[in-house]
């Protein structure tokens, strides 16, 4: 199963509720963040174009963080593309942090193992959306399986123009942005 997140940059207002929702749901310690919002501005005044992007781990189909992990701590959840870290296998060597072109990983403190966005797999297991998606006040975020051609995410990607971040990395990221 390939899970993707689709985020509509045309309706995102950059409020940061997704960031707060993640911190609350996953009890992410103070000073650490599993997701963040980027405001990208392009052009020359007065022809400026601004886009808001809620970003996180891309749960890549070619996850270099998993291939380079020396202990198998970085792994795929069940038969999906959701990348997780098993704290009891993690030595904190930080190879996965260096391996991530999106800088989406963090060192959990005070423990020291590596932590990251989990696509809220504990919610996905129950058929719920990740916390960030369900809390979005403008409903600009969507989550689902791209293997199902009738899913909302599949339909959106079929009908709307979209992009992923730095596809040149070859990591085949799974967070899509509608543009």
């Amino acid at each position: 199963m390939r899970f993707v997140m689709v985020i509509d940059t045309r309706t995102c207002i950059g409020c940061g509720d997704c960031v707060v929702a993640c911190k609350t749901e996953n009890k992410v310690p103070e000073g650490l963040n599993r997701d963040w919002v980027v405001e990208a501005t392009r052009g020359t005044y007065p022809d400026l174009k601004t886009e808001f992007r809620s970003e996180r781990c891309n749960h890549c189909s070619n996850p270099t963080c998993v291939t380079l992990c020396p202990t198998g701590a970085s792994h795929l959840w069940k038969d999906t593309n959701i990348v997780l870290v098993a704290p009891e296998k993690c030595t904190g060597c930080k190879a996965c942090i260096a391996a991530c072109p999106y800088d989406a990983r963090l060192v959990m403190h005070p423990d020291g193992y590596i932590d990251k966005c989990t696509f809220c797999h504990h919610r996905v297991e129950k058929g719920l959306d990740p916390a960030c998606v369900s809390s979005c006040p403008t409903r600009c975020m969507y989550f689902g399986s791209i293997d199902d051609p009738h899913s909302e995410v599949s339909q959106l990607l079929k009908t709307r123009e979209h992009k992923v971040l730095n596809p040149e990395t070859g990591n085949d990221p799974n967070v899509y942005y509608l543009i």
Partner: protein
Amino acid sequence: MSEELLVTARDNALIDPGLHIWTWEVAMYLFLGGLTAGIMIFAALMVVRHKDEIAPFATTRLAMLAPIVLSLGMTTLFLDLEHKLFVYRFYTSFQLTSPMSWGAWILIVVYPMSILQILSTLRSGYSFLAVFVDRLTIGRLILDWCERYRKEIALTIIPFAVMLGIYTGILLSAFSARPFWNSGVLGILFLVSGMSTAAALVVLLARQRSEKDLFTWIDLVLIVAEIGLVALALISLASGSAQHLEALESVMGGSYTLSFWVLFVGIGLLIPLLLEALEISGVNKSLAMLAPVLVLIGGYALRQVVLDAGQESTWTNYQTQYNSELLQRLQRSD
């Protein structure tokens, strides 16, 4: 203009504002690991080529340094781990695609091999230690066995020591996310640099003139090879994609220009090359001991610069308007 600004708080330690996960501990390990590889390769080569007369130190005594240097290196590597109690996890699995996993297992193989290497020349190199071992029957038998097969032991060691030397470079080059490291030359460059530092160490520690001369020659050849490999590494970046060109900038005008060109290329390669050439040609021998010291400094500088420049090279470059100091002010002092 094109500006990408972080508008929510993101101040993940070691990652923001720029990646700085690995510092001197890892650079030191890469340096000491390479040095160990060089030590074992030369100690083995001298045994294979029967250089007992010309190079007695390298043939019979040098090997003792391998486990000591490697242990120091592994200590600094351990210091770098963030989840230290789980260090044993390196040895509960083998990950085919992870150079770090390969490295962990190479180290496990190299350690006992280096002990065999020491034992095979213990009687001639460290007779005062051999006396104690010989007192026990089993000790005497082991020393006899190791001595009888010292050439075979040396030949077996060479490929594993070469793997140890190369892996420290492959480790970094496997990170496609860090364009500065992403060059296949790095493995060979680190191996040659490791051998060069080991040759320099022999020049420093050996007493016999013939041995110093031999290893000065060897080091000279290795430095020339290293210069060639550095050039190839730079060419490979210069002929790369936008990310590689940007990564190259860090040593071509960017923040690591001075340390790369002055400390590594100048002090670590060119000056010792000149000094060694002068010494071999007999023009000037007064600074003979300076060259190996500079080679050792250069060997460390290479690892540190490559490690730092690599971490700076990235695919994402966000500016942040978040000031983490504001968070401190929010905390109540109750």
